[in-house]
């Protein structure tokens, strides 16, 4: 039989039920405004970092909420905490604190504290 090139693909779904949402929960408990983001992208549009390298705070927030933590872990340190995103957020999300808490949560998760 010919080889049609079929192969079993890696799972593409966000495995929502299995994914670990503890980082997002850690942030939301301490910074409730994390919950009210409407994914408008204003923060990312204005972000100095995001205009030069791959970094979208909007994207990272939704990834955390879906438990897709690895990309966030890799990218979260790219933010330089300039705070421009706070100035433009129409929902008043305390974005800077979200980032600080995400970093803290990742640090603690390495140390098995959460």
């Amino acid at each position, binding site marked *: 039989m010919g080889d049609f090139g079929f192969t079993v693909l890696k799972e593409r779904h966000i495995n929502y039920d299995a994914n670990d949402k503890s980082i997002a929960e850690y942030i939301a408990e301490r910074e409730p405004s994390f919950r009210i983001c*409407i994914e408008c992208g*204003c923060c990312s*549009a*204005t972000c100095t970092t995001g205009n030069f390298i791959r970094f979208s705070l909007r994207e990272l927030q939704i990834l955390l909420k879906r438990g897709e933590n690895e990309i966030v872990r890799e990218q979260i340190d790219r933010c330089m905490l300039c705070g421009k995103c706070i100035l433009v957020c129409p929902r008043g999300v305390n974005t800077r604190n979200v980032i600080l808490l995400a970093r803290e949560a990742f640090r603690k998760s390495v140390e098995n504290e959460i």
Partner: protein
Amino acid sequence: MLKADKREVVVIGGGAAGMEAAGQLAKAGCIVTLLERESVTGGHVKNWYHLFPDSRNSDEVIEYLARQVNHDNITVRTGVTAGSLEKNGKSIIINTSRGERIRSDAVIVATGFDLFESRRKEEYGYGIYDNVISSADLEMMFRKDSIKRHDGETPRRIGFVHCVGSRDAKVNNLYCSKLCCVTAVKQAMEVKKHIGNASVYCFYMDMRMGGALYEELYKESQEKYGIIYIRGKVSEVSENIDTRLIVKVEDTLAGRPLRMELDMLVLMAGMEMSEGGMGLAESSGLKTGENRFFAPADHHFGTNKSTVAGIFYAGACTAPMNITETISHARAAVADVMDYFRNI
């Protein structure tokens, strides 16, 4: 029981809501005084060009409203502001800007809305960059049949920014103004009708197409007019050396920041409680909601009622409404007034 016949009612505000309410009250036999603070009636409608969803010329609405108030029982008084309302037994006294005290048996407050002052969103450059205009400015251009940049050129690339002054904690307006999405769709199509080779872009957070035929209009705008929709809230606007506008936005669906140069940018200004309404609320103790519009006595059964017996609301002084809804709401206010007269 007081019959509606010869009852005196004062309607405050001579826009669509007030004019419709006055007309219906007069037909029911009431003696109506319509107070309008501007020198002409018609409110915002007279600044509009074509109306969604059917592109009706707004002049037709103006004519309809003018016919409604053309009735022997109605006295239209322009240039008069209602300063405050006070109860006196079952009567309500209206203190006007001319120092009069008008007695009435009931009052319909129809003070409408103000368009959000786009200057307050400084980052969009209204009043700073000449080619950043508001949705109301564009309507005036349509009315004059001339869509031009400040330098007289015809714009080829036009952008619409949704949610200007709405859904924005930064200007203390959490609510959605409800009409600006469909207005943007309508205006985008209208621009294409005027400038056939224009590229038109709408920057939106959500397309709120809840009204009758709105979604159909949205589809038509894509299908027949090639309007391009980009999901992302514009964060800032700047101007380059040849006065083209540069918008900063994230294309949230593609997940990447997007830069675009435009010849003209239209800000979809939201609706706010009118200054006049606000003044009346303060002077007369009428309750307002978190969104600063008049708070109705009941969200299901009393959207035309205030918490003061004899004072009623009609139209966009209670929430953003389109003209269709405003006219229905005004008629409902009159039904409540009639009911009130039957029961006092």
